[in-house]
């Protein structure tokens, strides 16, 4: 009877793969969420707002532009979320990335909203968040970690937003 032996190199590779797989499982199970980048941007009045100043609150960061129709569709929906939850410690930062302020203002003047709009013509916020598509929104928890993100927008995902916001607001800071 022939006896098959596994080469030492193959054993070493298999062991390494096992270690990497285990490490991945452990890291994902521990909820190792990425921290939100430091952001300092002006609002409509020119006042500088930082994301760090909102620690202790659940923040929805929406990155939008006036040339992006799904972004414009999402804007009133996020404002509605803000009005629903603001009393319970929820904040929305709608970060506009239009290169020209006039285009953003034209859209904003056509809207009635209460959420906070920030202006980022140089795109520092999307770079920090490593944005891959427009629009993208991020739900940042009370500790400043990015817990959920949504690329694109449809009305169908609003119940999911609500459940995620509820989940984050139930957590302790």
């Amino acid at each position: 009877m022939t006896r098959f032996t596994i080469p030492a190199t193959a054993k070493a590779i298999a062991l390494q793969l096992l270690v990497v797989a285990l490490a991945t499982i452990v890291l994902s199970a521990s909820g190792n969420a990425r921290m939100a980048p430091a952001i300092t941007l002006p609002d409509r009045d020119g006042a500088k707002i930082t994301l760090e100043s909102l620690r202790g609150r659940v923040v929805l960061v929406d990155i939008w532009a006036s040339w992006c129709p799904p972004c414009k569709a999402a804007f009133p929906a996020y404002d509605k979320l803000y009005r629903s939850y603001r009393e319970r410690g929820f904040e929305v930062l709608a970060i506009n990335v239009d290169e020209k302020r006039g285009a953003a203002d034209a859209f904003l003047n056509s809207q009635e909203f209460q959420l906070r709009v920030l202006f980022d013509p140089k795109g520092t916020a999307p770079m920090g968040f490593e944005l891959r598509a427009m629009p993208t929104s991020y739900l940042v928890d009370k500790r400043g970690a990015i817990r959920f993100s949504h690329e694109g927008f449809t009305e169908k995902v609003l119940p999911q937003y609500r459940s995620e916001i509820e989940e984050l607001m139930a957590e302790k800071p």
Partner: protein
Amino acid sequence: MTRTTTIRRVLAVLALVALGAGATACATVQPWQRGRLSKTCMQFSPDPALTAFAGHWQESREGAAGGLGLQGGGCGCK
């Protein structure tokens, strides 16, 4: 090594360096920088409805999709 061969080699190296330098000039347009690309004038087709119709029948009859030059801003922004 003859003088002609040396000159050819130097020219080949210079051509490669120029090619490499040119390649570094390429940059990816980030999703948030696509404001200009999303403008109607950046479309290959002047009629979005006609383009959408052509896309529809090509997809259903030929199993082909895309490549019709729709302008975009990232995730289907038009």
